[in-house]
């Protein structure tokens, strides 16, 4: 009967430094867990310093977050307005009431017009007094400076550009009409302002994300300086660069993660503080507009990006400073 063959490793003297891959994998995971717990512990050992660093990062992150909320609300508002597509016809000042009503009657017959309302100079003045807050100032005037206005709501196929613009030009050329204005000009202007705001928010986000990376980088640089002895000893006993890097990357990750969560909280607190005046403003405009908040998805994206920035900052610090620490 044949002896079962046993595979023996080549003789290695007194050594048995072979570690199985399975053990190595388990130990690798264990080390990751340990390092993660360790970096949390380090954050807690200097709570005030850590908190200040986290707050600086969170404030930098919350600013673009708040701007984002403001912008997305402005956007949804402008979308609501875009649907109306009204045209205001300012009639010539000399035109009397009867001629104005007559003109309105003629236009109403037009297929391109769905509904239409006529505001005499007196109606316009009354409405203006009620809503503008200039009532008393207007009382001082001898004559009514406002022209009569016809508000035209075009039939659906003329409510969008470019048909709306064609209709506006057509109505502007009608006898008795001094000027035709579409509220779409306003919406276009608002959209331009929103686009500008988006660009500014984007720019600010990039600048502040860079600031976050630099703050983490500097914090990690100090941590590396503080743990110089440990790094030297680890390198002396055969620690690889990855092993030396790991705790610092975890620290950066923790800073990023926690500052992201903190920034989320700051944004929610800021929105809560703003909710009352915003609500009052919305009710003034009789709108059914419900302002959007900062939902879970943008919040998670914020935390993810901030964790990424944390790791990036730590990585930069580690690459720049770790090579300078070599046992001599």
């Amino acid at each position, binding site marked *: 009967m044949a002896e079962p063959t046993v595979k023996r490793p080549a003789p290695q*003297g*007194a*050594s048995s*430094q072979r*570690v199985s891959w399975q053990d190595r994998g388990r*130990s690798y995971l264990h080390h990751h867990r340990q390092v993660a717990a360790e970096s949390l512990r380090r954050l807690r050992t200097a709570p005030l310093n850590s908190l200040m660093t986290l707050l600086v990062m969170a404030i930098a992150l919350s600013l673009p977050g708040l701007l984002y909320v403001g912008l997305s609300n402005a956007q949804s508002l402008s979308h609501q307005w875009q649907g109306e597509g009204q045209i205001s016809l300012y009639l010539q000042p000399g035109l009397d009431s009867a001629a104005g009503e007559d003109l309105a009657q003629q236009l109403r017959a037009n297929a391109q017009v769905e509904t239409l309302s006529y505001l005499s100079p007196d109606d316009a003045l009354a409405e203006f007094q009620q809503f503008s807050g200039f009532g008393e100032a207007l009382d001082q005037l001898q004559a009514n400076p406002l022209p009569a206005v016809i508000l035209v709501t075009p039939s659906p196929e003329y409510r969008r550009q470019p048909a709306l613009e064609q209709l506006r030009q057509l109505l502007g050329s009608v006898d008795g009409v001094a000027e035709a204005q579409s509220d779409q000009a306003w919406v276009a202007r608002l959209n331009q302002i929103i686009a500008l705001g988006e660009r500014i928010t984007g720019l600010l986000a990039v600048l502040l994300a860079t600031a976050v990376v630099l703050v983490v980088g500097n914090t990690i640089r100090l941590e590396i300086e503080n743990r110089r002895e440990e790094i030297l000893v680890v390198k002396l*006993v055969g620690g690889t*660069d990855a092993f030396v890097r790991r705790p610092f990357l975890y620290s950066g990750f923790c800073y990023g993660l926690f500052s992201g969560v903190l920034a989320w909280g700051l944004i929610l607190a800021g929105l809560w503080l703003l909710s009352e005046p915003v609500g009052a403003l919305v009710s003034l405009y009789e709108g059914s507009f419900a302002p959007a908040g900062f939902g879970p998805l943008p919040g998670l994206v914020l935390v993810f990006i901030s964790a990424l920035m944390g790791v990036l900052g730590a990585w930069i610090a580690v690459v720049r400073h770790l090579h300078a620490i070599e046992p001599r």
Partner: protein
Amino acid sequence: MIEFDNVSLRYPNGFEALSQVDLRLARGEMAFLTGHSGAGKSSLLKLIMLMERPSQGQLRVNGQNLNRMPARKIPFHRRKIGVIHQNHQLLFDRTAFDNVALPLLIAGYERDAIGRRVRAALAKVGLLEKEKFNPIQLSSGEQQRVGIARAIVNKPQLLLADEPTGNLDPRLSAEIMGLFHQFNQVGVTVLVASHDLALISRLPHRVITLQKGRVHHG
């Protein structure tokens, strides 16, 4: 185990720490490296650990040519060598146990295996009951023994010691040298840099003398 062929080490400031050193240390041999301070003892050990690279000549350790070893392989090279430093290089933010465990943690040992090996190493140097102590609570002789435990915990084939008895009284020094002798008895190659000639002369091992960076006789 260690082969120096015409090795010189010149520092960037122009100082030549080692000049044309030829040296052989056989597997399983134990030797003392002696000479005045500044004679090049530490530089020679640093070359073996790849803390420095030779400016000239060939250096082989355990059959591997160190001249051509890329930087990323240096950590793995160091894991095969146990090193004891004069100032023991212990970390004071953790216990003796954790100090000794560090090389195993780096090499990726499993937690149970780490516990077993660390306790075996601490038992070997007679410090098993002090595993939970911070090195700062230990005497300098005990600190040095923690350093030795850390050097042997990974069961290296080669043990280097740089003035391991530098700060110790004669009795402790003799104890430490006795430990090295024991490791050598079980097959470990040992190279000890020391200027304690009185102690060295009492042990039956080869003595290599360095003078101004050159091997005098050995």
